[in-house]
């Protein structure tokens, strides 16, 4: 038996998982309209590659990745694109983002699916395939999986020892991974082998919290059937044991250092749902177009649905018949999920659960009281931070201090807020501080870039000026060298100033000679009357000149 390790802190919130595991996963009916956001993953938004009016097939690429950290988006069913415009998406900001609207034609017609043998494919090709299949981490972070598979095989210094498949699912209410493991364990094991092969990992550990005995049994059966040397381990139920860093600690005893990645200590971790979609993508050629989502809480029939991405959440929730006293909805779990202002939002890759909340199930948080520095938050913090100090710094907007106290090691699990006797929304303060610090770093980078460009521009202007002067001087020299036999040119006149003066003098002489050569044609052959008139005009001019002269000498008082 492999020894397990413990991480610091953690809490035991009521699990509330049994309600939604009574019924098998149901395939949600095809909705009348799908709204597919182009930003469903961490990193850059995908770029739409379809236009309004296009007919697309199920699994067809409709958004291609743009940038390094990005992923692709596919049509979840066959149908017609009716809009590519900003629409409401499930995001804490509540701001709209670019979405593709698809009206299904009901035929559910697949594109040509191409299965590949992962053992014969080069690692690059394999990663590209995952990227183009839109595979992202379905545990919540939606980080593109191809990047997590990236440098390892050909990086001699980083050997992946252990691949961890994360089936812990520690957050209350959520059971989508549980049901997936119960019903589709064989595919998960197949996906785990694909990931293990790509990473060249030595061992594979599948960690599942011990409150899911059926899932553990199903996975053990599937591993035994496959004959692969994977280990399925039941880990103690403790929130947030499903966080990658904490599951790694529990299973291997290794701690991911602050600011480092699991690969730095030779471990990589994938969620079970991600592993399943890797298997579907490689062995069946199916991109990520649907996911299992738990609908639970204050509903008649809590259960899991396999729904197409882009399915309106209100249609999904209606399948479970919410009870009349439902006041609001939460996407995700009660600890880390976000409240939804409306249900007219599409299901996204990150959407693992929708909870209908009534005031009986989720009583409104009592008003926040001042921090009494009881340090209960520090006792439960799984990242071993000092949440009360971080709260203080974040509240005072002392971001430098917050960073010095390892704010970025906070995983925002909410354990601190859960135990806080003063009901302070601590995580909100940490999120505020984190996003403020990130924004400042961005600004700093932009300012440094602007400074560099400005300095380079100044340098360039200076250089161009110098080059121009040099060019002129060179031209001058060349012109002089061209007529060395000129007798009027003494050798000491070769300096640029002298030559310039000489040139000016020559030009002046030339102008004078020309003026002398030209005689005005209107002053010859004049009649006596004309001569008399000219004399008169000349006399007047002389008089005026005289007056002006006297005015200048004796100005009027």
């Amino acid at each position, binding site marked *: 038996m492999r020894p397990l390790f413990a991480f610091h802190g953690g809490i035991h919130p009521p699990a509330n998982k049994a309600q939604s595991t009574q019924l098998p996963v149901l395939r949600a009916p095809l909705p009348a309209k799908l709204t597919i956001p182009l*930003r469903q993953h961490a990193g850059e*938004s995908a770029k739409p590659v379809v236009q309004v009016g296009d007919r697309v097939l199920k699994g067809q690429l409709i958004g291609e990745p743009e940038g390094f950290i990005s992923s692709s988006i596919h049509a979840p069913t066959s149908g017609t694109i009716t809009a590519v415009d900003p629409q409401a*998406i499930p*995001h*804490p*900001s509540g*701001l*709209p*983002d670019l979405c593709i609207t698809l009206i299904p034609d009901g035929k559910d017609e697949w594109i040509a699916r191409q299965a590949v043998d992962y053992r014969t494919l080069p690692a690059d090709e394999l990663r590209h395939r995952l990227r183009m299949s839109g595979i992202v981490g379905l545990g919540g972070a939606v980080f593109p999986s191809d990047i997590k598979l990236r440098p390892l095989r050909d990086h001699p210094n980083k050997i992946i020892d252990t691949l961890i498949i994360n089936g812990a699912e520690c957050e209350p209410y959520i059971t989508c991974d549980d049901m997936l493991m119960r019903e589709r364990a064989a595919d998960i094991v197949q996906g785990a082998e694909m990931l293990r092969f790509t990473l060249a990992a030595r061992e594979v550990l599948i960690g599942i919290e011990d409150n899911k005995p059926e899932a553990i049994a199903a996975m053990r059966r599937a591993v035994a059937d496959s004959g692969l040397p994977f280990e399925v381990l039941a880990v103690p139920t403790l929130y947030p044991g499903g966080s990658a860093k904490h599951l790694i600690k529990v299973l291997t005893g290794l701690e991911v250092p602050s600011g480092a990645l699991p690969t730095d200590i030779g471990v990589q971790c994938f969620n079970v749902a991600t592993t399943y979609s890797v298997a579907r993508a490689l062995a069946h050629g199916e991109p990520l177009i649907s996911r299992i989502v738990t609908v639970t809480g204050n509903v008649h029939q809590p259960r899991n649905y396999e729904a197409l991405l882009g399915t309106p959440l209100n249609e999904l929730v209606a399948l479970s018949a919410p009870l009349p006293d439902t006041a609001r909805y939460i996407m995700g779990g009660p600890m880390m999920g976000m409240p939804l202002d409306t249900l007219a939002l599409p299901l996204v890759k990150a959407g693992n659960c929708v909870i209908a909340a009534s005031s009986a199930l989720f009583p*409104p948080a009592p*008003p*926040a009281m001042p921090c009494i520095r009881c340090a209960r938050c520090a006792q439960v913090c799984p990242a071993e931070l000092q949440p009360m100090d971080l709260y203080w710094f974040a*509240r005072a*907007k002392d971001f430098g201090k917050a960073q010095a106290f390892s704010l970025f090691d906070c995983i925002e699990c909410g354990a601190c807020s859960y135990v806080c006797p003063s009901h*302070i*929304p601590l995580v*909100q*303060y940490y*999120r*505020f501080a*984190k*996003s*403020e610090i990130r*924004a400042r770093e961005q*600004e700093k980078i*932009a*300012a*440094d*870039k*602007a*400074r560099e*460009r*400005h300095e*380079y*521009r100044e340098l360039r202007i200076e250089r161009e000026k110098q080059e121009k002067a040099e060019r002129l001087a060179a031209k001058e020299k060349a012109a002089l060298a061209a007529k060395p036999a000129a007798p009027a040119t003494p050798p000491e006149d070769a300096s640029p100033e002298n030559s310039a003066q000489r040139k000016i003098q020559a030009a002046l002489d030339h102008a004078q000679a020309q003026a002398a050569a030209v005689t005005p044609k209107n002053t010859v052959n004049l009649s006596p009357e004309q001569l008399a008139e000219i004399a008169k005009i000349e006399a007047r001019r002389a008089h005026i000149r005289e007056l002006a002269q006297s005015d200048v000498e004796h100005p009027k008082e």
Partner: protein
Amino acid sequence: MLAALLVMAGIAIVLGAVLGYSAIKFRVEGNPLADKIDAILPQTQCGQCGYPGCRPYADAIVNGEADINLCPPGGEEGIHKLSELLGVEFKPFGSDMQPKPKAVAFIDEATCIGCTLCIQACPVDAIAGAAKQMHTIIAAECTGCELCLPPCPVDCISMKTIGEDVGNWKWKYPLFALRPTSQETPLVTSA
């Protein structure tokens, strides 16, 4: 008496030599304070402060020629940082110098005649184009300094405010009700 004088003179010569040597050896190029100020300034190179760029403004502050409240793009936060660095009192912006929301220039490409005047005006080379060819702003490099607006003979450049979207959205400072109310607009205040 003479011995004492010689000892003192000797010490003075030795110390003087050490000081003189270190003045050459450890000479600081430029003013480090100006570098620190320059690091705080937003590098828009907009010249709103009256100096031709952020670095000249930093130098002017060091020389005591310029006040610290002349940089609207840096915002009030910039003034706070400068006052902290320089140990002087915070000074609010004058009424004619208010920070504007961050914006980038935008060229109406149908109107642009390709005169290159804006390219010459841009302090950070953020405009791409050539003579008699349409110009365009490299939005990622634009600092929003507005220096390209006055030279444009056909007024085809406008400033577009960068709005909040899902990509650049930030978590807000937590605000919540002091006491729960059933009203539509609860009494909100900071904690």
